[in-house]
């Protein structure tokens, strides 16, 4: 087993998505033991840490950039990391979160918080980040180094890409997954 110094520091984040990509990542099952000696998971929904640590080697982003907080997070993660992966169709293309874009924010709010609300009709502003005009793919906010398509990407595809990366190779994910997979 390699020690911490030789492990790559990995952060994951779940922004505007359904967590399905993280689920698919966990679906690599016992193969996670093959990755474990090479990876230190230091930040993400699976790690109880509030602040994003410095000196990340790899960041895996699930979800589209849809609000102020998402944008803030990806900017900070990008600044602190060497390599960024957009994991899944929401991160790569906007996917389902971007379906609100053609409708417009005003009509979406109207539908969600007035038409479909029986009581307390109001647009929430306290304690929630402001929505961006459009939900956008991650690479339209920050530079992304690798794109893994799929909704969610199959566990096999995630395992393949991560195994290649820890082996020092940059794979072509379109060989193992596609949009809508």
């Amino acid at each position, binding site marked *: 087993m390699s020690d911490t110094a030789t492990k790559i520091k990995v952060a994951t984040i779940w922004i505007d998505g359904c967590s399905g990509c993280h689920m698919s990542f966990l679906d690599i099952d016992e193969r996670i033991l093959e990755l474990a000696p090479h990876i230190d998971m230091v930040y993400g929904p699976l790690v109880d840490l509030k602040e994003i640590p410095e000196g990340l080697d790899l960041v895996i982003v699930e979800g589209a950039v849809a609000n102020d907080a998402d944008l803030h997070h990806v900017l900070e993660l990008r600044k602190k990391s060497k390599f960024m992966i957009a994991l899944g*169709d929401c991160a790569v*293309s906007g996917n*389902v979160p*971007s*379906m609100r874009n*053609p409708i417009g924010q005003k009509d979406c709010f109207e539908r969600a918080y007035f038409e479909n609300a029986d009581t307390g009709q109001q647009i929430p502003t306290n304690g929630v980040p402001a929505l961006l005009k459009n939900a956008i793919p991650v690479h339209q906010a920050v530079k992304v180094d690798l794109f893994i*398509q799929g909704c969610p990407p199959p566990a096999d595809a995630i395992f393949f890409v991560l195994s290649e990366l820890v082996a020092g190779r940059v794979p072509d994910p379109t060989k193992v997954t596609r*949009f*809508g997979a």
Partner: protein
Amino acid sequence: MSKVIRVVTLTIDDQEVTGREDETILTVARQHDIDIPTLCFLEGLSGWGSCRICLVAVEGVPKLLPACMTYCSEGMVVHTENEQIKAYRKSILELLFSERNHICSVCVSNGACELQALAQKCGMDHVSLPYRFPSYEVDSSHNLFRNDHNRCVLCTRCIRVCDEIEGAHVWDLADRGINAHVISDLNAPWGDSETCTNCGKCVQVCPTGALVQKGTAVAEMHKRRAFLPYLNAMRGNHG
């Protein structure tokens, strides 16, 4: 007196092949199991040449040419793939994906879509252009079928099959450039069309989830195209 059709010899990807001079590079390539990706082209319908996915390089010609519209000639040297062609195909796909709202994961044609398959085949892993997120109608007025303009790539297969095979000419293109869109009759809802015969040929030839059968859920729409070579053969149509 009928024109004499000559047989010509040409080279496609370093392979010497023969074809008739009234056959396109695409036809001859496919006869020899040389793969050229296509989108607007469909065997059995007239050529259209609008999508440019099948662009190939012909030595001595300064620009790339669509294989589906370029006839063979004696001594022609064709290359079906190089770095420039790969980059063009990716760009074309990025333009198509950014132009309308193609959300594969929730599309009835997910897994059976030619646009989706092309993206994977051509290694189009993301769209570097800003998405337009346009607002398009979904026409569900027809009893059996649906037209979701969000998924349309303007290949015009529906227009051609309805005109050339069914003979009804329900479909046409309206407007120009980025505003171009498919209309039924004189821009009436499909369900109100007086010319539509409800045959569904347009649905079956549509490469994406734009024209679909009603009652299909995500990934349930599989197109059946066996009628096209069959009808052409029965009618004695060639090419």
